[in-house]
């Protein structure tokens, strides 16, 4: 188990390093960052001064090493737009995004897992068909459009929920639904497939032969085994979700990290964008790492290996 964790950790670090290099390289895709900072109208002398000030005249790899070294100490440089440390800007916005991500994945799990279980208990029943249809439809629904429809219905027509902002828990309801439904189909399908497989297993028959009540058979004996792959899927989805929060945050004007990313891209604020790409990638890396460890721990065959 320890060996597995260490190996997995090494891989995670290597992935993180590679992603950091890619997100840093994006800066050079932009051509001369000095022009971006100075503005289109700046003269050659100013641009040269900025180039030297920010160290853009050094070789790219040196600049990357420098950036990485600083990034390791949570120093992502200054935002071109706010003239503030990028790290502070992101830290300030992360709580909204994290809240949204956690609510989203909880919403997805709490709806998709029971639906998947019911669908698996009664395959080809009406509920199963509805669940399958919902999962196909869910995958096809553009999240920005879904968000706007919710705003039209629940904020404008019915007036039940606030359309934008983050000042109360009600503000998080619609964004949670929009972010969470995206992960639902995959979780639902995996739960259903897992339960179907597990329910036909011999040990389920053993549990029934012991005289275990049906609820105990389903939840203690079957779901416990079927849920193992769902856990890692949920973690992966959580990583994707945080990355996808940019759309949801922009629709509902939630001033989280995703919103900051959207604004910063519009403002050509490259240090902020770079840092955000790295931060979102790190979230994904951390979540998948935790998922793998949790997975190994949930499965006794891997735990003792």
């Amino acid at each position: 188990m320890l060996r597995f964790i260490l190996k997995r950790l090494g891989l995670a670090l290597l992935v993180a390093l590679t992603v950091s290099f890619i997100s840093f390289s994006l800066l050079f895709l932009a051509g001369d960052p000095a022009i971006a900072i100075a503005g289109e109208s700046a003269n050659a002398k100013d641009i040269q001064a900025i180039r030297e000030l920010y160290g853009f005249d050094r070789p790219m790899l040196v600049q990357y090493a420098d950036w990485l070294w600083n990034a390791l100490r949570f120093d992502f440089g200054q935002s071109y737009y706010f003239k503030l440390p990028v790290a502070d800007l992101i830290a300030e916005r992360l709580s909204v995004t994290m809240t949204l991500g956690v609510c989203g994945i909880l919403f997805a799990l709490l709806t998709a897992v029971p639906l998947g279980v019911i669908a698996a208990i009664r395959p080809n029943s009406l509920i199963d068909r509805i669940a399958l249809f919902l999962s196909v439809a869910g995958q096809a629904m553009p999240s920005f459009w879904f968000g706007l429809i919710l705003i039209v219905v629940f904020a404008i027509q019915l007036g039940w929920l606030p359309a934008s902002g983050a000042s109360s828990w009600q503000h998080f309801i619609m964004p949670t639904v929009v972010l969470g439904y995206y992960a639902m189909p995959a979780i639902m399908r995996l739960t259903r497939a897992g339960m179907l497989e597990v329910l036909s297993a011999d040990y389920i028959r053993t549990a029934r032969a012991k005289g275990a009540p049906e609820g105990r058979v389903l939840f203690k004996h079957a779901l416990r085994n079927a849920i193992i792959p769902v856990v890692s899927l949920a973690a992966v989805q959580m990583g994707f979700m945080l990355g996808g929060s940019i759309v949801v945050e922009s629709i509902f004007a939630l001033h989280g990290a995703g919103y900051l990313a959207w604004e910063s891209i519009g403002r050509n604020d490259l240090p902020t964008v770079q840092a955000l790409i790295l931060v979102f990638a790190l979230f994904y890396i951390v979540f998948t790492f935790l998922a793998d460890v949790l997975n190994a721990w949930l499965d006794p065959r891997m735990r003792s290996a």
Partner: protein
Amino acid sequence: MTEDPILSVRDLTLDIPTAGGMLHAVRGIDFDLHRGETLCIVGESGSGKSLTSLALMGLLAPKIQRSAARIDFDGTDLLKASRRQLRHLRGARMSMIFQEPMTSLNPAYTIGDQLAETLLLHRKVSRAQARARAVELLEKVGITAAESRLSQFPHQLSGGLRQRVMIAMALMCEPELIIADEPTTALDVTIQAQILRLLVDLQREMNMAMILITHDLGVVARVADKVAVMYAGELVETGPAEAIFRQPAHPYTRGLINCIPVPGRTERGARLGTIPGIVPSLVGEVTGCPFRRRCDQAVEACAHAIPLHRLDGDTHQLRCVHPDGHRHEEVTA
């Protein structure tokens, strides 16, 4: 034997709807079983032995239709029993041991948890008491270092050990009836004899009734009090083991017994008996004797209703057109 049987089955019939029509998997099974008795149900794979045992436990897949004139377990009518009543019987008073020890234990829980669960489901005992009982039974089924096994997971045990655990699990509540469905087929040959010995010893010690399902007549000869020979969903011959081996009546039973090599009497390299032909399809209407197409005693009457004959008084029963299982000149004429 004037005592009432602990299990009494009359006219048990199992039908499975399939795309091609109704599959009449088990038809009109009758038998009685008393405390302390071992009934061996013998037959080829696919003859409906396992389905019969699952039907007795109430563990059939929902789509399989069960009907019977009577399934009576120690005064309880299993046909009319509620799900709740059945649940209280299963694991407590009637237990089952399955064919596949490798997959019959839940991979997510320890041996100890799974053993204790059986007791905790049926008796008001503490966890500690349940675990103590688990240790006791693991020792009884011959597992060394029982205490430390409790915290192990199924994948850490060999097939033989797992089957011992399954047996221990079935015995946790001291059931009156134990059904063992080919408990040794999935195991190494050397382990098979040990497990079987263990099962029979425990059955005698605890005075349980046992239904042992097998296709191995060698096993039957060693352990059975009663034998029921099953062919294509019907019991073609039932009776005391001694009578069946001494004087097998049904052509199928005779064929089966001829397949057993006898030390000393079967010559080295001699051809063992085989029964040519294949089992008939059980989809749609099934009439007459299912064995008639493979039977060397078959006559025209075999395609019609088959009478039940009683030999040696009441206990030895034969389902065949020939009263003693042999074709005689007057029948064929």
